[in-house]
């Protein structure tokens, strides 16, 4: 209940601080609804059939490998459009997320508000969770404002609803991870600039690091670890969520360069890699939020366990 009150407080503040921005986002959401209705109608009648293999065979004839790639792209153009748009959303989230969140705890510490929040809330994890929500909700609203663009994927051919949901879940988990990274940087940094720069560095490493590392491992002939490393990259996870597109691409020239793991076997159970990625991002985000709460609380039990042990009941 106390944590909910704190979350509500942070959100009310965020809303009051950027009312026009919220209004714009609501307008974006309204247009999303309109487009969703339009897409539903397009689904009943669309000028583009879902499978158009013939087109690609005409265009690509000069290379032994290119036609196969373009054929896959042409066949799954709805999925490709959806994937590209989600990548675009991810990049926006990486740019905007830290800008919304990285300064939160630094600013509060400098203004003395963090002291008040810790004193009033009694628990630092409630404060950090509220900050996470206060960063997450505006970012989601900003992205929701751009969500009408996703209709393009259905306009050019569409994709299976399961794939759309899987891609959305990967994006959502990635956004939570982005905000959590910005939050822990905000907790550790002494200035807003330091928090922002460190957030971008960490997020850049998370987005590009596995790709670079995976490529290096492939070049070194270590395909199995390369496959595992590539699979945890958020951009690759977005691709994995488009299972038919990812399977199609696995048979093309890309298979020689990037061959991320598509499934994770645990005992007799096999889970799609994108689902494992979603779980991984959420677990890492939870750990980062906990870490931020340890950093901001000067007397966190982790830091005072010796005192607690030596003091018995404490009074």
């Amino acid at each position: 209940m106390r944590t909910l009150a704190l979350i509500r407080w942070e959100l009310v503040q965020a809303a009051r601080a950027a009312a026009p921005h919220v209004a714009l986002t609501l307008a974006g959401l309204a247009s999303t609804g309109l487009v969703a209705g339009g897409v539903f109608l397009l689904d009943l009648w669309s000028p583009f059939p879902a499978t158009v293999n013939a087109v690609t065979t005409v265009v690509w004839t000069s290379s032994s490998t290119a036609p196969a790639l373009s054929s896959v792209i042409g066949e799954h153009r709805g999925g490709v459009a959806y994937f590209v748009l989600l990548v675009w959303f991810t990049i926006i989230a990486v740019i905007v997320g830290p800008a919304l969140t990285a300064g939160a705890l630094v600013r509060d510490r400098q203004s003395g508000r963090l002291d008040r929040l810790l004193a009033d809330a009694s628990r630092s994890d409630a404060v950090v969770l509220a900050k996470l929500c206060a960063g997450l909700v505006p970012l989601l609203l900003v992205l929701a404002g751009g969500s009408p663009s996703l209709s393009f994927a259905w306009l050019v051919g569409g994709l299976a609803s399961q794939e759309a949901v899987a891609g959305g879940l990967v994006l959502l988990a990635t956004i939570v991870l982005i905000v959590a990274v910005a939050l822990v940087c905000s907790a550790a940094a002494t200035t807003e600039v330091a928090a922002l720069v460190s957030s971008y560095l960490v997020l850049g490493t998370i987005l590009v690091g596995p790709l670079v590392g995976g490529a290096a491992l492939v070049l070194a002939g270590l395909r199995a670890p390369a496959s595992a490393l590539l699979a945890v990259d958020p951009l690759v996870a977005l691709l994995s969520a488009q299972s038919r597109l990812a399977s199609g691409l696995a048979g093309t020239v890309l298979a020689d360069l990037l061959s991320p793991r598509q499934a994770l076997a645990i005992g007799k159970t096999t889970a799609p890699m994108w689902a494992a990625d979603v779980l991984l991002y959420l677990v890492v985000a939870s750990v980062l939020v906990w870490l931020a709460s340890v950093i901001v609380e000067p007397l966190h039990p982790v830091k005072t366990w010796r005192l607690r042990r030596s003091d018995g009941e404490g009074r």
Partner: protein
Amino acid sequence: MNAETRRAIELRGVALHQGGRSLLRSIDLTVEEGQACAVVGSNGSGKSALLRIVATLCRPTAGRVRVGGWDALAYPERVRPMIGYVPDEPGLAERLTPMEHLLMVAAQRGLGRADRRAAAESMLDLVDLVEQRQSPVEMLSRGQRRRLAIALALVHDPPIVLLDEPLAEVDEVGRSELISVLVELRAMGKTLLLASQAQSDIAEVADVVVPLVDGSLEPAAVRAATSFTWIEVLGDPIVAVRRLRERPGIDDVRHEGNFITFRGPVAPEQRAEVAEWLVAQGIHLSGLGITGTPAGGDRP
């Protein structure tokens, strides 16, 4: 009446080093329940750091802190509900109203839905912000913001209130309004620990003034500001009054029946020493404590 009053705040050997500098050095300080103690010192003397340590918002490099009987460093979650902390910077949200601030803090402090509004209304009344209840904080004066910060610290009715520079940068009108709030807090029996740059600022409120110079307390300079020690004697009070008047370091001895007040040492150990000395003189005591009113005024 208990002869031994309870200690609300107790610091033993508290030191704080930050950035290669000693902000606090081996601080020993005791504030009893119901006492108003003012820590006075110039900028950078360590007053705010001392208050933040008591508020469990800063970990000292060395020493122990007890608040309400609890080890404050080991169990901050037990101590924070007992404390109302008014920081130097109020840290208010500019676009929200005093009422919204109070309702939010009341919710955070765990008050039930039905009690929150009543507590908020009561606090607005206490700090005289009823008319500004729906005005955004950005419209409030500095004094009104200070009063709101005090109201936020009190909304859960804590027994201990810590106030960092409560009168800083407040004009004359705001100052007198704030002092009346602080006097009312004292009358409510709250334990107050105040930090201030000038003793004159808090002379009307504090029972004890503790000078802090370069992070060190000056025990010899600890003095009573406006408080009296009171004792209640069994038998003839005249003998006790006479003995007290003869003792060095004690003055302004007054009595009303068996209730005697005097100005003198304020440290608990020193007062206990006076009590033991009286007992050694054959005077039996039934009570001992501190009060802001001399005998002849209101009883504590």
